[in-house]
């Protein structure tokens, strides 16, 4: 590897950051040349986000040195970062929903509001990022919100733009548009730091990659000449585990929604518009789509937290369940298993022990109560079984849920629901933010459930994951569900078109 022409736009050396239970960054080195598109690659929990927060002045390192265009700097606030010429597009957007686009821009940049709308239009047209400056942010789609973030950065003529996992909120077509914008920016001399765990994207876009593993730099590479496997080896020390889906024979319909419409409780939420679907026993049905398109609402309808108008709107294991609450749905036949998208606070009670969290949904299915009394011995045994069978890393079942890492807690929650042997299993974003090992175990558990004849519904933003473990895929876009297609007949292009709400020209479709 040859050294980039001196001085680099940004040079990090010896950056370390410790948290109570984890070393997020350990002696990290990173350099970026002017006009370079540089990837920071690593799996969930490898320390990418912490590093970006350090560069943007949100978090301070415990030790290490930062040089900007050759000069030593101390970036102790985002304002300081912006003053240097660093812009950041966050993974979770830093926008205020109740304010307009131009108010948001004015607030963050300190630019005078006079004539701001004009400048926003100008920049957004120049870079192919159309937005209306007068609209309220909560009325924008997730993709549009990302454009607002990018335009907000561009208005300050950045010399380094940090993009944190930007494509998870975009349709495949929008990803291509974004890449074009980023290449245009790089050609104009702006350096780009592109953070992702998606190998294909990095190989397509980036000229150089710094790979992080468990907080340390595990290697540097030119992704254009590497393969997915060689990058994966740098990233996790082995090739990406895959979870082959053995051929299955779907049984009868176990989960059925019949033209369900539902308003959202969230004033900024998306209403469901006539969603119908059928999931058979022994089948995994995947729902793709970008969060915010009705996923929350659909999940509430499935779990019973939102009751449907008619009992027949939702059928679980053959029973009309539309008017039944969550507890009653769990008790139906073999019952409904449910893994919510939000682990701490919904799937588990943060301050309670794992044993108590096993009791949360296991009370009836695992026989953990008798009359009004809790059977402590059984609760503890059930929790221990989950911990052992799903390899949850924890001292014992008395540990508080909040003391577990995201991946371990998710293994516990999945384990709890799986051990109740449900007839129908609904899992939302099952591997979001989870390390590769845990993700493989979780996907394996869902595939095992399918083998046992359960109907499994997976709602996920990760297309790769859906393509790997689903028998059929549909897309939720703006509260409407697309037709479904067998996974072997699905293409990224088709799913992408469905994501944009265009359900026409469906090709190989099964009603």
């Amino acid at each position, binding site marked *: 590897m040859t050294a980039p022409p001196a001085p680099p736009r940004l040079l990090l050396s010896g950056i370390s950051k410790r*948290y*109570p*239970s984890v070393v997020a960054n350990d002696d990290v080195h990173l350099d970026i040349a002017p006009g370079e598109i540089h990837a920071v690659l690593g799996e969930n929990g490898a320390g990418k986000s912490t590093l970006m927060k350090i560069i943007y002045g949100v978090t*301070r*390192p*415990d*030790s*290490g*040195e930062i040089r900007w265009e050759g000069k030593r700097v*101390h970036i*102790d606030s985002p304002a300081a970062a912006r003053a240097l010429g660093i812009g950041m597009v966050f993974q979770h957007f830093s926008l205020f929903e109740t304010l307009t686009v131009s108010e948001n821009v004015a607030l963050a940049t300190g630019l005078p509001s006079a004539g701001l709308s004009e400048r926003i239009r100008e920049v957004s047209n120049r870079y192919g990022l159309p937005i209306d400056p007068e609209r309220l942010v909560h009325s924008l789609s997730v993709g549009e919100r990302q454009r607002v973030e990018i335009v907000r950065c561009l208005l300050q003529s950045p010399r380094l733009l940090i993009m944190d996992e930007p494509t998870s909120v975009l349709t495949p077509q929008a990803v291509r548009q974004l890449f074009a914008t980023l290449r245009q920016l790089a050609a104009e001399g702006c350096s780009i730091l592109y953070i992702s765990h998606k190998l294909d994207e990095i190989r397509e876009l980036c000229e150089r990659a710094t790979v992080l593993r468990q907080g340390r730099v595990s290697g540097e590479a030119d992704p254009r000449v590497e393969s997915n496997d060689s990058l994966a080896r740098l990233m996790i020390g082995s090739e990406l585990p895959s979870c082959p889906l053995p051929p299955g024979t779907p049984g009868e319909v176990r989960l059925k929604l019949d033209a369900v419409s539902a308003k959202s409780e969230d004033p900024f939420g998306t209403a469901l518009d006539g969603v119908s679907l059928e999931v058979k026993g022994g089948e995994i049905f995947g729902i793709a789509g970008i969060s915010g398109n009705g996923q929350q609402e659909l999940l509430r309808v499935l*779990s*019973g*937290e939102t009751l449907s108008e008619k009992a027949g709107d939702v059928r679980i294991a053959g029973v009309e369940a539309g008017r039944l*609450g*969550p*507890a*009653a*749905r*769990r008790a139906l036949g073999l019952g409904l298993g*449910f893994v*919510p998208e*939000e682990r701490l*606070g*919904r*799937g*588990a*009670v*943060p*301050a*309670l022990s794992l044993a*108590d969290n096993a*009791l*949360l*949904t296991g*009370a009836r299915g695992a026989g953990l*109560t008798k009359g*009004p*009394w*809790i059977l*402590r011995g059984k609760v503890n045994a059930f929790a221990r079984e989950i911990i052992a069978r799903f390899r949850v890393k924890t001292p014992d079942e008395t*540990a*508080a849920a*909040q*003391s577990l890492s995201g991946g371990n807690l998710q293994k516990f929650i999945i384990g709890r629901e799986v051990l109740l042997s449900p007839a129908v299993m609904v899992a939302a974003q099952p591997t979001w933010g989870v390390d590769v090992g845990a993700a493989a175990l979780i996907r394996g558990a869902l595939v095992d459930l399918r083998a046992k004849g359960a109907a499994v519904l997976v709602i996920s933003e990760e297309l790769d994951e859906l393509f790997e473990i689903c028998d059929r895929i549909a897309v939720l876009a703006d509260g409407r569900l697309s037709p479904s297609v067998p996974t072997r007949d699905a293409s990224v292009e088709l799913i992408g078109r469905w994501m944009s709400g265009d359900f026409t020209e469906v090709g190989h479709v099964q009603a």
Partner: protein
Amino acid sequence: MFKLEARPAPSALMRVASPLFAALAMALTGALLFWALGQPVGKAFYAFFVQPLTTAYGVGEWLLKATPLLLCALGLVIAYRANVWNIGAEGQLVMGAIAGGGVALAFPDASGPWLLPAMLAAGVLGGMAWAAVPAFLRTRFHTNEILVSLMLVYVAGLLLRYLVGGPWRDPDGFNFPQSRMFGEAAVLPLLHPEMRVTVVALLALLLTGGVWLFLARTWLGFRLTVAGQAPAAALYAGFGQKRNVWIALLASGGFAGLAGVAEVAGPLGQLQPSVSPGYGFAAIIVAFVGRLSAPGALLGALLMSLLFIGGETAQMELGLPAAITGLFQGLLLFYLLAADLFVNYRLRRVSPAATPALKEATR
């Protein structure tokens, strides 16, 4: 150099220790206050915390005042566990007194053994009925229970004043706004002839065990705890939210109502314009100091009761205003909340080696 950092899990030790730190800090502030008021600190402390307990009568008074505090606090423990903020225990207590006292006044000549149980039951129901208002309004109209329960404290107080000044006024009472004295069958038996504390103190002790069992061992108690700590998890698990609100408010209202009727059927023996020196409010502090647990509430009630009588003694012995009690109560809760920081956070010594680099990096 020290740094505050989040603990991976809340510290069980600190949960128990922080009320003790809070009591200690309150005592120290008290010493400072006595000194600033020109009182000999040792003597003032003696008058406040020791002297009341030197006689059997004093101990009786201590338990007497601890009883309604404990009862109200037990109910609040249940409510606050469920994240239902009933702060109107004072009003529910008054309604318990009105309902129970009403039964006594309705049967002035009754002598049967049924009268007291009927009064106690009426008191519990009175408190429950008053707490049912915020429960109904919250579950039906999404109205905040904090404000509603508090507003009803004032309404209950005015209602009591109206009753004892009007329809229920003792005709032979020289126009004083108070009811007739209750008959003998309507007065609670004493624990000990030299004390004023009644058998309700024992009942409260029994109920303490009951509430502990309820919260620690029953499925319903578990569901309330989950609803309080993580409302979304309760919805996800299918624990009916409305039912939790009802249970929390009815339980706390019932306990406060029992405290109220026990006051009028005990030490007061009649209805007066004021039946409580603020037990219902002080019980909020008791519940917190007791870590929202029943055994904790017992200890908290004993401490808070001592503050009440200590204030009275200090008034007589030192000429200090009795209102000093309220000051101490508020301080105690402040210190407790502050000390609770260390339940979830700890101070970590930043190692000297790392310190210079940190300073450099963050300058």
